[in-house]
């Protein structure tokens, strides 16, 4: 946790959240919060102000942010709430907690350079539509080189280990929801 606190400090999060007076405009405009009471950007900021982010970092709900940036636009104190959420996600990932779908995206990109790759059928359709051939993308040796420069394998390994622990522990989603509502 000390490492994480250091990370958040490096990101200057306490300072970036400092002007928050908890008016809740961010939560009021949040399209996810409308449906999910366990997703509340105001509480994410509150936890930073209280220097208590343990719960958020372990919690699945932070990954529900769609990054619509409504909170960022509407904050009367010009706090970039969605940017804070990005940093919290990064911190959670360093702590081994990330949504599996997002980790998969990382693996796909570092493997092929792209989130999605055209199938033979799509390449045929491109031809039928008279579209030019797609340019060559990044090569795998360059991707591997970049991954090692970014300590990417190590980051993914942390996620894999923790993911295995969490699924072995059957972390209960409803249970964590209750925990969250108590924070409020």
């Amino acid at each position, binding site marked *: 946790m000390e490492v994480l606190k250091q990370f958040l400090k490096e990101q200057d999060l306490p300072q970036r959240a400092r002007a928050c007076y908890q008016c809740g405009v961010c939560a009021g405009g949040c*399209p*996810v919060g409308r*449906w*999910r009471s366990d997703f509340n950007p105001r509480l994410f900021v509150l936890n930073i102000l209280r220097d208590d982010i343990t719960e958020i970092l372990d919690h699945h709900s932070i*990954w*529900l*942010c*769609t*990054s*619509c*940036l*409504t909170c*960022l*636009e*509407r904050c009367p104190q010009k706090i*970039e709430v969605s940017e804070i959420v*990005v*940093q919290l*996600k*990064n911190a959670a*990932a360093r702590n081994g907690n*990330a*949504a*599996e*779908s*997002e980790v*998969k*995206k*990382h693996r796909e*990109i*570092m493997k092929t*350079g*792209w*989130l*999605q*790759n*055209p*199938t033979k059928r*799509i390449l045929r*359709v*491109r031809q*039928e*539509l*008279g*579209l*030019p051939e*797609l*340019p*060559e*993308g*990044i*090569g795998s040796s*360059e*991707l591997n*080189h*970049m991954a090692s*420069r*970014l300590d*990417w394998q190590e*980051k993914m390994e942390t996620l894999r280990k923790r993911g295995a622990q969490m699924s072995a522990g059957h972390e209960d989603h409803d249970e964590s929801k209750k925990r969250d509502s108590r924070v409020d």
Partner: protein
Amino acid sequence: MGENSSFTLYEGCLIRARLPHLEKSARAVFDRFGIQFSGLEGASCCPDPIGIRGVDEETWLTLAARNLAIAGRHSTPMMTLCSGCYSTFRHAEHLLAKNASVLEKVNNTLHALGYRYSPGLAVEHFARFIIEKIGADKLASQMTDSWKGLPVAVHYGCHFLRPSHIMQFDDPENPTKMEALLRALGAEALDYPQKMLCCGSPIQGIDAELSLRMAYEKLRLMKSHGAKAVVLICPSCYLQFDVLQKSMEQKFGLSLELPILYLTEFIALALGVPPSSLGLHLHRTDTRRLIREIFPEKDSGD
């Protein structure tokens, strides 16, 4: 805009891998205005400004800066066909400009790979270029087929306009610039509530049901305010509204039947590009019935 403007084209992963018809319509429109595209060799995913950045910002920023560095080797600016890619590139440029130590770190990695990022490349979003550099008047002057008063809902999506202090384009809560284009092409651009509500696409892999619910709410609002079609400018939003529309109808029990058109498809049809050349059969939600109704003399590509 010079008649011979040219760009390197950054299609983005979704258009490359799944939605070639959207690229087709973009090329058809830009061709009409003498705009040339060349390919961008050696690029990677932008990458995704939400999933990839969320897990590790450094990976996201480095890959983005690498793409920008490659594009910067060309003498022409880069155009994106996707609001996600546009968001990644503009946001990455912003972060690299405001933080020298981040820039140095990224450039150290890039240097080892033979690149260098320097600020200053112009990245263009196709819709922004159409609005700002082509404009409603010029589109109207080239129109051969009016949309005949069709009520259309515009979906701007989140990342085209926000963060507004970076994008600096249209009002991030109540934008109006795209509506002016649609009106110039004979459509009725509808006013409907919650125009900036998110399509829900970024959480498709995290909570598919909630993601679908969000998309459904948006389409339901458009439909109940009289929309007969939706015009949008982002392939992620397109996948939500077009590809998943049938799933929404099944799950939530309301028939929507709302054709989803990319802005460039909408423009191409008004400029007389033959519908049969646009690959409209690749839409999962039928568009061809609508096109037959509005342009009965045309072959809709059945």
